[in-house]
């Protein structure tokens, strides 16, 4: 098979992984080598594919042969698709040639399971080590951990790559048993907490010894598939929250389940992937990470799904109308962040600008506040813009007037699954 065909197969096989970040590393160009992984606070996107997702890394599988038969996965062993594997040299040459032409920020390497986890991991580690040691390549490398790989290999890889990630994929143990019978819960969670612990240990080491090597400078991430199993949004958010707070996770990616298997009784028959739900989960995730929210505030046990038509912050504000209106010229940064229509940037601008005099509604609009939403929740020097103060009236005005554009597969509250959902995965410290 020629290289073009291999690349097409192994890129298409990797495309369902949502991770695209290339930021957060501190790897600099050493000894006039190639590449530099320290960029501005944002990573760099080099292109955007026809689905609107950015291309920043050469995202490929080492191989799409796989011993596992996970029902949701396009590379499952029972799926009849063309298979191929790269050689170590081929991946190195592709990465270097693409990088030199400024097509990419670096390499994202994952793989199907060949023989066993450690065998696959060894091969991937070879690629990474050669890139760093022989090619003096200092670009960004994101390496997937194959579930079940030994700690020795994970630890070694962590000193060569910028980011490690283990994909949880299914947010509950029951989901795993149903759809990925060969994967054990511990194969996924143990490496994650191991990486989390190593990050902490390494941070202490680097404080003591200035020259100590940096273990995964850009941290670890994971991915959850949304809509392939019956978990609620609350369960998913709680899991993310634990991951952020307890195992040092940088990012959780959510990937709307794209129906790729049509004959599995355990998989839902969706007419379209739940993109809107994915989008709302990302919004809620941002609230957890940057806006000081707790998962219990965003969702209630008796209402465990995010609303399709309202963003989660507005939803929270409507349930907590007694906290509003807030006086924009007085309240602190954290309270500003809780107002629908005000983001981090506009909150910072408000704080800076109000030192020079009090702000009016038109000032706010110029600072980037979305008054369409904010107007119901704020006052400017005591003045209101709206006289509405009950939830139903505000809700009615904020709901989209037209039919929602994104097709939603099904209302998540309808029972797609008949067995009761079990408890979400929980994490334990070593």
């Amino acid at each position, binding site marked *: 098979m020629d*290289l*073009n065909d291999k*690349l*097409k197969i192994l*890129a*298409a096989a*990797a*495309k*369902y992984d949502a991770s695209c970040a290339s930021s957060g590393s501190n790897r*600099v*160009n050493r000894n*006039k*080598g*190639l*590449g*530099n992984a*320290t*960029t*501005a606070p*944002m990573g*760099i*996107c*080099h*292109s*955007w*594919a*026809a*689905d*609107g*997702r*950015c*291309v*920043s890394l*050469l*995202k490929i599988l080492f191989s799409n042969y796989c011993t596992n038969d996970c029902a949701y996965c396009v590379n499952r062993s029972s799926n009849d698709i063309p298979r191929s594997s790269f050689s170590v040299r081929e991946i190195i040459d*592709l990465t270097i*040639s*693409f990088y*030199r*032409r*400024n*097509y990419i920020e670096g390499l994202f390497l994952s793989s199907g399971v060949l023989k066993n986890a450690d065998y696959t991991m060894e091969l991937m580690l070879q690629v990474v080590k050669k890139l760093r040691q022989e090619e*003096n390549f200092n670009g960004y490398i994101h390496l997937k951990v194959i579930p079940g790989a030994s700690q020795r290999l994970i630890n070694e890889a962590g000193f060569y790559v910028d980011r490690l990630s283990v994909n949880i994929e299914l947010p509950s143990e029951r989901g795993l048993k149903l759809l990925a019978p060969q994967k054990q819960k511990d194969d996924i969670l143990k490496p994650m907490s191991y990486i989390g612990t190593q990050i902490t240990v390494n941070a202490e080491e680097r404080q003591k010894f200035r020259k100590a090597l940096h273990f995964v400078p850009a941290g670890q991430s994971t991915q959850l598939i949304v809509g392939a199993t019956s978990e609620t949004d609350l369960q998913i958010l709680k899991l993310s929250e634990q991951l952020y707070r307890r195992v040092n996770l940088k990012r959780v990616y959510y990937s709307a389940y*794209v129906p790729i298997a049509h004959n599995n009784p355990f998989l839902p028959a969706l007419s*379209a*992937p739940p*993109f809107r739900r994915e989008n709302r989960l990302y919004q809620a995730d941002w609230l957890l990470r940057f806006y000081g929210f707790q998962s219990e505030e965003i969702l209630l046990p008796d209402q465990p799904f995010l609303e399709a038509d309202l963003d989660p912050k507005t939803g929270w504000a409507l349930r907590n109308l007694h906290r509003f209106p807030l006086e924009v010229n007085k309240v602190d940064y954290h309270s500003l962040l809780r107002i629908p229509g005000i983001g981090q940037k506009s909150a910072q*601008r408000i704080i*800076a*600008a109000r*030192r*020079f*005099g009090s*702000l009016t509604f038109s*000032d706010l609009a*110029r*600072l980037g506040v979305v008054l369409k939403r904010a107007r119901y929740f704020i006052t400017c020097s005591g003045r209101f813009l709206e006289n509405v103060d009950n939830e139903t009236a505000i809700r009615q005005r904020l709901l989209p007037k037209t039919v929602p554009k994104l097709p939603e597969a099904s209302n998540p509250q309808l029972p797609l699954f008949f067995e009761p959902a079990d408890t979400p995965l929980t994490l334990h410290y070593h």
Partner: protein
Amino acid sequence: MIEYLYDGSFPGLLTAVYQTLAEKNTDWNICRASEFQPDLFSQTQIVVINNDWVGKLVASLACKLSKPALLDIYYCFLSEERGIEKLISVFISKATQYPGTQFEKNCGDKTVLEIQKISSRVSYEIHRFQGFVRFRQMKDGIYYAPVEPNYNIISLLAPHFTARFADQQWLIHDLRRGKGIFYDGDKCSPVRLSEIQPEALRRCPPVLSGMENSVFAAAEPELQHLWNDYFQAVAIPERHNKKLQRQHMPSRYWKHLVEQVEE
């Protein structure tokens, strides 16, 4: 009305601003000499760069404004937008007259907001071009990238690419402005392209678009095909969303990409 005509350089602009502040005229404008169109009612005054004045102005601004705000001024200058000289000098005069420091934080002020808006557009384009620059390897081994940015930003791309491609010679060519930055394997310097590059290099679309490719290194055509194949393979058909793609990557940037973006 007095029209101050400057040479189009940044020191030239700062000299002009100093002059407007010192002369305290009420009705004035600053304009590039090359773009000036004389009319019946205005007087003109040619600005001659005065390094003492520039030094004084920069020193006083450095006390009044933060570093990012000074950079904002420079970015606005690089935007080359119509009327930007007037905006910059109004901003500078407001900042120097403001009794305290950090006038740039006053987002309630229209001039401040406008400066920030234009500056952020310029810095967004710098960020974009860190991604959109596409090098083609030429016969002589030099990696060459043609670009057509809206703003005059290639000098600001130099540190980024120098840190990244330290072991290869490369050249970024601003086709619109006829200038480039060239890294010779040791240091990066500005070049006027008409002088040093053969004509064949001046217009250099990707191999994919069918150009006769004798100017490229031997491996170049195949690599461009590989990249284009990769680019087409990563899109998920079920998520097809051309509008989103266009939003992130407006069509004016497609021309010099190597991958083929479809309408």
